[in-house]
């Protein structure tokens, strides 16, 4: 029986992937990217979870052996920041594209065509 965390996280990734692959609106694709990113972050966090342990902050009564794995948390913290930055940049690109082409439909944006 697969854990609900894994199942949920991978589902989020797949939903995001579906939006990226199928949706024609650029903003919807970006939404899909964000969802995918959330899914990946959730997956990473859930990998580091050890049942019954608390947050990895060294304080009274909580030693290294009573904490969950701290590495995925640091990783995810980085990943969130990167995700926000890429989203912001992609959104600004979307604004520029809309200004230039007057549409957000990816099939009508022809710049990359050879």
């Amino acid at each position, binding site marked *: 029986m697969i854990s609900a965390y894994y199942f949920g996280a991978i589902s989020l990734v797949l939903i995001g992937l579906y939006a990226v692959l199928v949706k024609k609106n650029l903003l919807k694709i970006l939404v899909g990217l964000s969802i995918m990113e959330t899914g990946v972050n959730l997956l990473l966090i859930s990998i580091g979870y050890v049942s019954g342990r608390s947050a990895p902050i060294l304080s009274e009564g909580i030693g290294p052996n009573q904490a969950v794995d701290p590495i995925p948390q640091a990783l995810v913290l980085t990943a969130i920041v990167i995700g926000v930055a890429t989203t912001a940049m992609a959104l600004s690109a979307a604004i520029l594209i809309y200004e230039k082409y007057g549409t957000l439909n990816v*099939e009508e944006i022809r710049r*990359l065509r050879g």
Partner: protein
Amino acid sequence: MNELLIIIFAPLIAGVLAWWLDVRGIREILGVAGPAVSLSYLVKLYTTIDSGGFVNYTVNLGGFSFNFALTQLSWIFGMIAGVIGLAAALGMASTSKSGYEWLFALMSLTGVLGVFLSYDLLAFFIFWEIMTFGSFMMVLRYNRSASLKYFVLSVIGAYAMLLAIGLIYARVGSFSFVDVYRAFAQDAALGVAGGSTVFSTFDMAAIFGLLLVAFGVKAGLFPLHVWAPDAYSETNQSYTAMFSGVLSKAGVYGFIILYMLMGYRLVSALGTFRGVPSFGYLIAFLGGLTIIVGGLLAALQEDIRKLFAYSSISQVGYVLVAVGVGSALSMEAGVYHAISHALFKGLFFLVVAAIVHRTGKTEFKDMGGLAEKMPVTFAMAFVAILSLAGIPPMVGFASKWLIFEAVISQNLPILGGMVFFGSAIGFVYLIRFTYAVWFGQRPTDLEDTRDAPLPLAIGMGILALLNVVFGIAPGLVAGELNKIIGKEVIGGTIWELDIGVGRYNGLLLTVWLIVGLLIAAIIYFLGAKARRVPVTDTYQSGNPVTMEYNLTIRRDFFRPLREALSFWLGISFDDLYRDVAKATEEFADILRRYVYNGNAQSYAWYLGIILLILAIWGV
């Protein structure tokens, strides 16, 4: 510095200096000095080689060791390169216009000398590429599309050779000829004894096929010859003397090396056919087709340069037939014809260079009556014509006779027929060159044509002299050839060739020829009534002379032949290769339209699919 390195690199150094200084006069002297230094060192080393010696040298460079060695075989080929290189350089002193040409012409000479003198596969390949690059740059200067065709086919050949070398290295673990030979010989012995061999039959077939393509491209083997007519004709004609005379021999030398290194293993892997190794028979048969195709196409050309380009391909076909048959006699006959081809074809291209240099015209229809205006060049051309046609006492007769004997004595009727046909077609195209260029009416704009410039005439003189000397004294060459095999395959004195089933005495023949000519001269001077023959065109093949069907020696002379062959001429390998190129282009266009379509979402799909495949695969 080692003597072998001097031999190899002297032309390149001279070429670089000539290009760098680029002062008219000095660059010509330097350019001629390069091949002269190589040649003199080769001559100097003759005594060592003659006494059964062996000069070798190893350079260690970047973890690789490059072996060079001067054996009897490579000495002979090196001498071909040296002599023709010197003659062609003398020709270039008259016809070249810039330091660029000196640089790359001499670079290709260095490459070909390196190919002949290298004693491991890696050095062989590197010098092979230097040779190709130099000659490619020479053609590029004159004609872009011809050079591209040459380049593409050369690259295919180079990759084929590289793959074959890789296959050999993977199994043998060494590039050195000695180690490779030992490995193949051991393998052959194991194969005969029924043991498990290092190289499987499939390996051998693959290596042979790849090397056939690699050497075949350079030698102009049918159907890989399509680059040669364009490349030979679209460059400095003095350089073509070297290009056709020496560089095509690199392919021939490659086939001989192929025989020497892995002949036994190839026979044990691929079997024999009619008493000849079947791989050799394939080379010989393709060589025979090369003779026929090259000869027929040469007869149909309207451009002198093209005619000799095709004729050169055809003549190298002889060498390949002889090398392919692979008996000791035919091997020697092949090398002999390689020498004589270099001598007469180098001479022919220098003659063409002189004609083009002095008249600026290349087509038969603009020529005529040049024998009076360029007597020296005409004399040289006459020697070359006799030699190519195989008329004693020129060197061309001795070598062709040996090839005929070698092929017949092996009982190979088809190859024999091809070789004989090639000789007949040789007359067909030479007769046209003889009459259309040298005799008949002279067009008025050729009235003030002068004879060949002095350096070019000297270059032609060297080659013409050797054509005659080696024809009258064929034993001079045969004696050296016997040392390759290590026993007396071709007997006789220096004047006479004796191969058991027949003899040819060059001196005796010359004496009788001179006696005959003297008798003819006496009769002529004693009172043959000279009658001035009006210049009329007598060749019509039963067709009425009209303006549309005006077959003169200068225009459309072999049009009936062309019409008879029209079906076969429709099958053009040139077109085939062009179609392949076009199909590739169309395929790329389809890819661009449907796969690389500029839609970022499609690319996301590809990425997803690839990741899925990798996940299923379990990476």
